């Protein structure tokens, strides 16, 4: 083991040498193109999964057995499979479609997996609200949709935010798997770059650091969101109290 190679400035130069920035600029521009794709796939999958996940959760919550059990089977089955397997399967299944851009199977695969996880988070969030609340608002004469909208969902949503944000971070990390089916997202650009410069350790550590920065920024944001939420909630309670008084 020798760490000379790790700290060799010539191997860091293609990324960080500012005295002659042409190489570094080219490297980072190349990586940035990958990051744009990574963020695009993440965003599309996140939105699609939220919609599909909500739908699946509602299907699972219905009492009709013919709807409930298929939804349950789908959610539990998909959650029990590796994401990479799902991405590969989607890719292989869509291979016969001509001229399909690679981001399509990647995004569909990620969305299938993430919607199942999101469905479970959403179902758990709704289920965590005591039955008593549902019964009380129904007894007070609110219809079922109104109970959902005004009593159950506002509380449940707040409980879902932290796990959903966690899943968003997982999703962003999982987009790196799209590189395995050949997509030129951030990680793959990194691999191409280190093969060009011949500095795998340095480039990979930089790539990991960028993922780290993006993800920690996301989790900071989610904490802010939660804190902000609580504050507005408290304000609302306070105003309710003063108006009541």
């Amino acid at each position, binding site marked *: 083991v020798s760490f000379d190679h790790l700290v060799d400035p010539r191997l860091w130069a293609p990324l960080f040498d500012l005295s002659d920035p042409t190489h570094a600029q080219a490297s980072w521009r190349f990586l940035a193109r990958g990051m744009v794709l990574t963020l695009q796939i993440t965003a599309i999958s996140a939105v699609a999964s939220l919609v599909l996940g909500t739908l699946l959760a509602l299907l699972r919550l219905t009492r009709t057995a013919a709807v409930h059990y298929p939804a349950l089977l789908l959610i539990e089955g998909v959650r029990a*499979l590796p994401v990479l397997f799902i991405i590969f399967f989607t890719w292989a299944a869509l291979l016969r479609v001509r001229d399909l851009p690679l981001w399509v199977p990647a995004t569909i695969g990620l969305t299938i997996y993430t919607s199942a996880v999101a469905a479970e988070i959403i179902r758990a969030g709704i289920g965590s609200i005591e039955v008593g609340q549902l019964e009380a608002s129904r007894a007070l004469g609110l219809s079922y949709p109104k109970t959902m909208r005004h009593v159950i969902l506002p509380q449940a949503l707040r409980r879902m935010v932290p796990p959903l944000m966690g899943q968003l971070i997982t999703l962003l990390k999982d987009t790196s798997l799209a590189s395995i089916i050949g997509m030129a997202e951030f990680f793959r650009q990194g691999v191409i770059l280190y093969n060009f410069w011949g500095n795998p350790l340095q480039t990979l550590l930089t790539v990991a650091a960028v993922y780290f920065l993006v993800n920690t920024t996301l989790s900071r944001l989610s904490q802010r969101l939660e804190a902000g939420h609580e504050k507005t909630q408290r304000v609302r309670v306070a105003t309710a109290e003063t108006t009541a008084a």
Partner: protein
Amino acid sequence: VRAVQDNLPLLLSGLRTTAELGLLALVLALVAGTLVGVLRVLPVPAVPWLGSAYVEFFRNSPLLVQMYIWFFGLPTIGVVLPPFWAAVTALGIYTSAFVAEVVRAGIQSVSRGHVEAARSLGLSYLQSMRHVILPQAFAVTIPPLGNLAIALAKNTSIASAIAVADLLYQGELINARTFATYPIFLAVMVLYLVITIPMSRGVNVLERRLVAYRR
């Protein structure tokens, strides 16, 4: 279906590799994770900070990137790991960051009173850790650790990216050779479910037992 029948030995050897990967990585994750988890609550300056740096770094970058660092990055400083062991290390260290979080939360769930009581009864910090805190923390950590083991079992599939001949890798190879996409992937799917579904059932049972035990 012929394609599945003919290649069943290959698929089963892939399943075996997947299981070996998962078990070895789990042992590494539990050992390293418990150590780091304990480091994070030690009342010594700088040590908890190091622990959380470890956790944050390994949790917030993709496993695939880490696997490449172990397999393609480390040889440049003279550490050459064969693919299987690079995958075990990557999976184990990645999962250990999550284990550390669970262990830390478990330790902090033991009420302060117990710690103070143990210390005032004359137990040293390490003794109170060993005899009072960790045994109680252990019970709380079992269900989340079970979930991590399931996630680990699924993550073993990423080892196929560095050509470890696991279940997914074998499936891909057979698919590339036979083009019997649906039967092959269905077989691979069933084999994954055979591992993960009993595990999640097990976690559910443990969770219910734990609730009963607390009462």
